[in-house]
Every structure is written in C-alpha cells, then in structure tokens.
C-alpha cells in the first residue's frame, strides 16, 4: 500500500472521532497544493501528501481549539504542534496527529528561477513526479527538474523529517538530512558585516508591502486581531510605508517568536516579495539554543517563560 493510501486509511479511521482532519489537497495551480479540511470520506478524494505539501497545517489548530481535530503533518509541522501544545495554545489531547516521513517540499520560487525566460510557474499545466525528478508540462514542452534543485532551503537543514509526536505514523521513518542544525547560514550572513547588513535590510524592507502574510502564515502568531502591530495605544507602528516601520514589524515578529520559532519557514514562503524574514527568527533561535539548549517544538517549557536563579550560561553583568 502506498503512503497516500495508508494516510487515507489513517484519516478514515480518525474521522469518526474528530470534527475534521486538516491535510493538503489540490491548489490553485499544479505547482501548488492548498490546505484541505476533510470532514467526510467524500473529501478524501482530493487529498494528497508529498512534495507539494508546503503549507503548515498546524496554523489552523489554535482557532479550532475546543473541538477534537485531526491533522496530517510533516516533521516540521509536528514541531509546531509540539510548541503550541507546550504553550497550552492547543490541548494536545484534542489533536489527533497523523505523521508520515517527509523527504522535503517544493520551493515554487526556485522553480520560477529555473523556468525564468521560458514561462511563468502559473503556465505549468501539469506536474508529475518521477523518482528524484519532477516533470513539468509547460507551453514550451516538457521540462525535467531534479527535486533537490527545487526543494525548500529549510529541508536542507531538516533534523526532524518524521513527526516525532505523532499519534499514528504511516510509512517507514526516514533518516534526517542533518542531525544538528548548525545555523551556518546565519553565521555566513552575519559575517557580511554590520554596515552591509543594515543596507541589506533597508533595501529588502523597502520592498515590503506590509501585507502581513508572514504573520498570517505563522502557526505560532496566535494574537491575530490583538496583534501589537495594529494597536493604537501604544502606537507601536504608524500607518506609514517607511523602512523603519516595516523593519520594526519584522522585529516585533522575531522578538515575539524568540524561543518559540520552530523554523518551519512559512513566513518566508508566504512573503509575496521573497524577503528573507526567517533570518531574523533563526538568529534568535540560534541564541536561545546556545543559551538554554532549547529547540522549540520538543514540548518542553519555553525558556522565556521560566528562569533559573543562577543562570549557568549567562555571564553576570557585574560591569567590570
């Protein structure tokens, strides 16, 4: 039985006990899947999980709190579920987690770069997987792309491909790509120097259109209508379109995710302008991991919600 069929039967088995199961179905175009809410067996028709299952279904769990729901997760989505449960934003016993081994997901921006000059990603009429490659039907004929060339960056540093906290796991567990996330990308980024980074963010944030897609796609941004970015009292952000306001919004997002971000990369993926906003969150995650040995998503108490009287890793600021 294929993974798809096994997942479908796991969902069917869960359906009587839950109000819905969140998974993935056909999206607006062949390159993109979309979240699918499965309420009955009829909805299972469109279900599929795999290379196109980009969205993080944990996003919907806090708003469904109070009823028993099922969710199909990749490894990274399972970390989000674990973090939400650790912060009691969801009740773990209300969520039926169905896991499967994830071998990476597509990055449509990378496909767009590969197709540049030939056609737009929206013009791709069909996508077919063929082992380690995908075949795209484009107006200019069939294009074969290696999966590894169009896989999301986060998958290249994935330490948790299998949902560790799944209630039901289908398929064979696959080996993680790396055992430890070394944050080499952040170290390289920082090595560019303060002046260059300042100019980098000025340039990148000047493109930001303040659509807040990064926030809306973030499974751990749970304030929704109470977001401080909307607050008038205190007035953290003006309505202006200057770089400082837009950058400060990203700072708010990063600071509010410090010690919580599981690095699922949905903020960056959702950004319609391709601004690398995940970098700020990863810089803080690296700091938290170094100071408190904490990886978000494991289910332990987040480090900023607790303290030690003697902090072994924090140098006391006795000021010379």
């Amino acid at each position: 039985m294929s993974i798809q069929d096994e997942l479908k039967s796991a969902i069917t088995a869960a359906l009587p006990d839950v109000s819905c199961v969140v998974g993935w179905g056909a999206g607006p175009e062949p390159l993109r899947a979309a979240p699918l809410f499965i309420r009955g067996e009829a909805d299972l028709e469109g279900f599929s999980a795999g290379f196109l299952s980009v969205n993080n279904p944990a996003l919907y769990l806090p708003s469904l709190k109070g009823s028993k729901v099922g969710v199909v997760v990749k490894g990274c989505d399972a970390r989000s579920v674990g973090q939400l449960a650790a912060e009691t934003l969801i009740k773990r016993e209300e969520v039926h987690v169905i896991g499967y081994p994830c071998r990476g997901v597509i990055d449509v921006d990378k496909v767009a770069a590969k197709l540049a000059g030939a056609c737009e990603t929206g013009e791709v009429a069909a996508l077919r997987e063929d082992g380690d490659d995908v075949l795209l039907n484009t107006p200019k004929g069939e294009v074969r792309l290696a999966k590894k060339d169009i896989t999301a960056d986060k998958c290249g540093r994935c330490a948790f491909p299998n949902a560790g906290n799944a209630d039901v796991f289908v398929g064979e567990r696959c080996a993680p790509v790396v055992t430890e996330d070394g944050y080499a990308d952040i170290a390289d980024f920082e090595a560019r120097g303060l002046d260059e980074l300042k100019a980098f963010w000025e340039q990148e944030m000047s493109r930001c259109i303040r659509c807040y897609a990064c926030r809306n796609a973030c499974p751990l941004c749970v304030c929704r209508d109470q977001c401080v970015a909307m607050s008038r009292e205190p007035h953290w952000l003006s309505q202006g379109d200057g770089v400082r306001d837009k950058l400060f919004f990203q700072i708010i997002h990063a600071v509010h995710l410090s010690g919580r971000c599981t690095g699922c990369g949905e903020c960056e993926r959702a950004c319609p302008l391709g601004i690398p906003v995940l970098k700020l969150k990863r810089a803080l995650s690296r700091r938290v991991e170094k100071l408190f040995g904490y990886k978000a998503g494991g289910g332990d108490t987040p480090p900023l919600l607790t303290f030690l009287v003697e902090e072994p890793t924090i140098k006391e600021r006795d000021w010379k």
Partner: protein
Amino acid sequence: MSVLEGKELRIVGFLCNWCSYGGADTAGVGRFTQPTDLRIVRVPCSGRINPLFVMKALIGGADGVLVSGCHPRDCHYAEGNYYARRRLEVLKGLLPVLGIDPRRFEYTWVSASEGQRWQHVVSSFTAQIHALGPAARFTEAPEPARLGA
C-alpha cells in the same frame, strides 16, 4: 541647534523604580559627576521592560540603550529581573543580524544604595557609546536597487 550638538549622543536608559532609579538618585544626591547623555525612563520593574522598548529606541534613532534593574535575588517583585535577564540576553542575538552594533545595548544591575556604582556604569557606558560614535539611522526610503543587479 543645541550647543551640545555633536558633543552629546542620545542614550536611553530604562531603570527600575526600586533599585536603579534609586541608585541614580543616590548618585545625584551624592553629587557624583556623570555624563548627561543618558535620558532615563523609569519603569516599575526590569521585568516590565519589553525587549521591543529597546528595539524601538534603537530603530528610532537612539545611539545606545542601557537597561538597569535590581540585582538578582533583590527584585522588589521577587522574580521580575530573572525574566528580564533571559529576555535581554536573548535580545542581544538579534542586533548583529540587523546590522546594529550589539555594544550599543547593555544591561546591568544597580541597587538603590550604589550611587558610586551608578556613576561608574553611566560613565563607562557613555564612553563606550562615544567610542562607537553616533548610530547610523535606518533610512526611510533607500535608493531603489538597480533591476537585475
């Protein structure tokens, strides 16, 4: 234009009401000379200090930010400074990636009786900021990058 233009920098200090603000007061009462670059914001407790206060000040044009609270074990509210210590320590990891010199932000502990220590903290932090010079502000609208560059 102020006569101090160029001589003085903008340093924002967030001081807890019970220890550090008292310590700064003690330094004043004791007539210890101290640099005048620091603008003090009094907060109830270092645990009240949202890391975003620090970031807002730095993005808004402050040249340095100093946070000071009660010594660990001495918090008026028993544990506010323990939470502050973790938050502020984590925040230091965000500054370099944004292109802000992490030395522009420091935090420390000063009790209400430590006027002398307060003088030392303010003087050395101000000297540190002066050594770094005025912070380059983030421009509101940079020159657009050349297409295809």
